[in-house]
């Protein structure tokens, strides 16, 4: 019974699609976050003068400030992208999978 249940879900194309899509999305977004954050931290560790450069010659605002605010917004936007896609696509697939095993 239990094995049959697992088998049904595992063979459900919706389940395969869900896993594949989710894996691609979470890996992509996680890597983007890690790459952006670690580039930021390592650039500060190895070459702090880089982010200390003003964005315009007559401005006191540095690239560091712009990049820092960008990292914060970037983190928020990534959560927004994930939430949007998951709400739209993953929940529908999950619903289909659940319907297919109803009553088992």
């Amino acid at each position, binding site marked *: 019974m239990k094995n049959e249940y697992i088998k049904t879900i595992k063979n459900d194309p919706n389940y395969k699609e869900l896993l594949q899509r*989710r894996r691609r999305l*979470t890996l992509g977004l996680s890597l983007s*976050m890690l790459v952006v954050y670690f580039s930021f931290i390592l650039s500060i560790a190895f070459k*702090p003068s880089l982010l*200390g450069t003003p964005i315009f010659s007559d401005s006191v605002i540095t690239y560091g400030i712009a990049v820092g605010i960008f990292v914060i917004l970037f983190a928020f936007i990534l959560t927004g992208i994930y939430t949007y896609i998951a709400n739209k696509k993953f929940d529908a697939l999950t619903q289909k999978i659940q319907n297919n095993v109803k009553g088992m």
Partner: protein
Amino acid sequence: MNRSFLFIILSSIVLFASGTIEGAIEKQDLNISAIMMFILFVGATLGITYWAARKTKSPKDFYTAGGGITGFQNGMAIAGDYMSAASFLGISGLVYMKGYDGLIYSIGFLVGWPIILFMIAEPLRNLGKYSFADVASYRLKQTPIRSLAATGSIATVILYLIAQMVGSGKLIQLLFGLEYEIAVILVGVLMILYVTFGGMLATTWVQIIKAFLLLSGATFMAFAVMNNYDFSFEKLFSHATEIKGIEIMSPGGLVSDPISAISLAVALMFGTAGLPHILMRFFTVSDAKEARKSVFYATGFIGYFYILTFIIGFGAIVMVFENPEYVDYASQAISGGSPIIGGNNMAAIHLSHAVGGDFFLGFISAVAFATILAVVSGLTLAGASAISHDLYSSVIKKGNADPKVEMRVSKIATVALGIVAIIMGIMFENQNIAFVVGLAFAIAASANFPILILSMYWQRLTTRGAVIGGSLGLATAVTLVVLGPIVWVQILGNAEAIFPYKYPALFSVTVSFLGIYFFSITDNSLRAKEEQEAFEMQFIRSQTGIGAEGASEH
């Protein structure tokens, strides 16, 4: 220069989660408007506790507020749980003092959230019931895994509580003119009342109200500052650089060596994802969809808050620094410079006075108090659930506990933790607690997080691997903190640290993962085989929510 800055960073780590005020604390005069607003807040929250107490009947109500909190509410409550008084005062104080480096620091505390969303939030909600140990022990052997997870949780909670209590005692002493011991007892007693009677429902609403008050107050301050500069950052920043020099616009010495930088980043990212009071919040929503929305909103609120603290720090540079009203003349006479009353971490508090007078100062002081209460309540609830749900119900009673008795145990545990927190708070008043929060994050990152994430995603994980690897991670974190610069040199007075880095996470997390990996793949027992076979079913549930704990009726 670098050395003194490292010290400042260290102190602000504690500050972030604790609100410790550096230097000698002088008791201030009673602040009447602050006390009025504080009484208003306490009255309102006790009213909520009374309302929540009548709805809190079962363990499910107690641990998860019945599971009917919406994603938006939970996002706000998570933000309320995470933005401590200290992140407000500590980060704005760091910006006030060092400018740009304060921003680097706050970014570190934010970037763990997207990772929590992508990897943890939904499977956690789908697999668990009341605590993250539910997930870790889903297909593994209950007794050892729960015991280890509960140890990690209780250790994290108590360390964090010590930092909070000491910080709150000092902060309240300074803001309200109360004696340190009275302040600590007051915080402890209020927290016990909220949690024992109102459980998660009261705690959630205290956190939501606090998040709202903190965000409103900080928004007003940032707005008032920007208003003085025609809403031009260029004008604000150039005025600030005239006062403190151009270097406040660039990275200073926060992450001077790459190993420390990476280790701190690992501690913040994975530590956040292993904090039991944060993880517990995901069980208060009805399903994975609401869990996901919670993180989206929480990340928005927390990110917005950090941008505000950056503006507030710069606002304090232009409005508080060298302002005769806020200079600490006694301390100036001894050490020169322009110290402000209560130390740099009071920059935001003085700014609230500079932009809004006594009334707004009172408001911000009351908000700081509310913030402390919200954070300690969440912590205590998480600790109590580890004791009653994981240790009592699952380990001692093997899952056959009477719900009524389990409730009683969790309430007794709450009172006990409250008393422990008060005693520790008083004991540690004059101790150097700079290592405490760092250690809490290190334990969360090295013991809780690896077990949790591998139990969700790695089929070959076995009980033996999780127990040995998790314990090794825990032991490594504790050992390296003790042998590190803060405890070994600053507290124990040795000349040189045996372990040169302040943050052990990079090493202890690696040890934990390697240990879990090695002792899992070499585990050929029958039990291990069964655990690996059970993964499929678990993974289906974690991905689809089929069979997950349902929402409540109310």
